[in-house]
């Protein structure tokens, strides 16, 4: 991919500024996921509520990015690597927007969970998973900023680990519910939280795939390995 400056320098400024918005959006989403996990861990209503409120800023950034990309396409008619840059900016922004929604949902469910007694051991597993997903998201955004297709490929390869954690957690949650039906409500919320975190992992993978497209001009052809087998689970 070409990185020489454009003859028309305003074109470079437009491309830089829209990418800077994505980087800022990425930072906000990472922070939101981190805070949401912390709020869950610390049973912290105030922190959970602030994550819910702050999602609006992430949504607004996505809107601005889409508007800027539309202008850039109309006014600059980008080609080749420039075109792929604009297309990937829009995709990455949409991935990030979804991640922001999941963080917000985590905050919401945390405030509900906080109204009943903690469910032994389970939230530790959820936190471990959140940690792994945060690392994935961070690495995907890092690969995006550095245009590093190898780093992106490794993010993609690691997604199955998160799927596996999720599958294990799914069985753990089931066991809890079977053993003590009084925990069912809390377990349901925890399960949604786990599923949402797993989805954030998928979006991190989506961002990594955009990095590969951006750098090489083609999306990876192979199906990535799936570690989540819960769709086939039948219970105890």
């Amino acid at each position, binding site marked *: 991919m070409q990185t*020489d400056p*454009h003859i028309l320098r305003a074109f470079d400024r437009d491309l830089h500024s829209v990418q800077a918005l994505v980087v800022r959006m990425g930072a906000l989403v990472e922070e939101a996921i981190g805070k949401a996990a912390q709020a869950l861990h610390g049973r912290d209503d105030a922190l959970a509520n602030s994550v819910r409120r702050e999602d609006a800023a992430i949504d607004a950034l996505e809107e601005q990015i889409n508007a800027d990309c539309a202008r850039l396409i109309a006014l600059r008619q980008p080609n*080749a*690597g420039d075109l792929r840059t604009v297309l990937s900016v829009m995709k990455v922004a949409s991935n990030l927007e979804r991640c922001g929604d999941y963080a917000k949902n985590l905050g919401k469910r945390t405030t509900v969970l906080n109204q009943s007694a903690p469910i032994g051991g389970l939230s530790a597993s959820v936190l471990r998973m959140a940690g792994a997903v945060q690392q994935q998201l961070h690495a995907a955004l890092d690969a995006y900023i550095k245009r590093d297709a190898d780093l992106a490929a490794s993010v993609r390869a690691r997604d199955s680990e998160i799927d596996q954690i999720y599958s294990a957690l799914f069985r753990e949650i089931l066991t809890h519910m079977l053993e003590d039906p009084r925990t069912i409500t809390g377990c349901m919320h925890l399960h949604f939280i786990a599923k949402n975190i797993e989805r954030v992992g998928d979006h991190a993978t989506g961002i990594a795939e955009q990095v590969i497209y951006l750098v090489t*001009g083609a999306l990876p052809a192979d199906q990535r390995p799936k570690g989540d087998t819960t769709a086939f689970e039948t219970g105890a």
Partner: protein
Amino acid sequence: MNDMRIVERDVNTQKAKITARGVQVHYGTTHALKDVNVDILANTVTAFIGPSGCGKSTFLRCLNRMNDTVASARVSGEILIDGENIYDKRVDPVQLRAKVGMVFQKPNPFPKSIYDNVAYGPKIHGMTRNKAELDEIVEKALRKAALWNEAKDRLNSPGTGLSGGQQQRLCIARAIATAPEVLLMDEPCSALDPIATAQVEELIDELRASFSVVIVTHSMQQAARVSQRTAFFHLGNLVEYGETGTIFTNPSDPRTESYISGRIG
């Protein structure tokens, strides 16, 4: 679909209409074209792009031996049309130019009537036996060039009285009146407004049903809009040749990418 390629617009054939092998052109000591090898497809619009002076017009002029008229030009290598070497001694360049028509940058109608502009080629090539046949050829060419409706009531007024866009379509009608198989266009829209440009582009797209069209253009967007194949020239070399959608989303040579994205390469 894994690589998000722009869906390739129909190319009906993989048949090569023109084959260039090892084509070199010198103007005196200037080495203008260096070992060009390419297959130009039948019923396909091929765009030649590249910075000024890279040899696009030179190569275009090789395809109908217009360089024969340039005293300092020396052409070597082979150019085959339908498998026949057009530089063979037995080939009559005048006949060749009826088969390989050309449209230039500036509309250049003869200072004659609209009718005579179109009738000129068929007349000198003895393509008709009588006035009725000639009328028919003129009407057909003007229809193909999308000029008939505007010109049919003023066939005897001078071609130079038409608007720029109409004049260019008249030149296209003149070029296609001799029933060519290949149409060469050297920046045919550079003197036209956007509406006339769109009309000529639409015409080019229709002409591809009957001809191979080769168009030199400085507008990347025009090349992208109108062609199915794109060739990028740089300093006398044919650097990259391929499907237009691929060239504009994912070119393989960094020189191509620099050029089409407006970079300081």
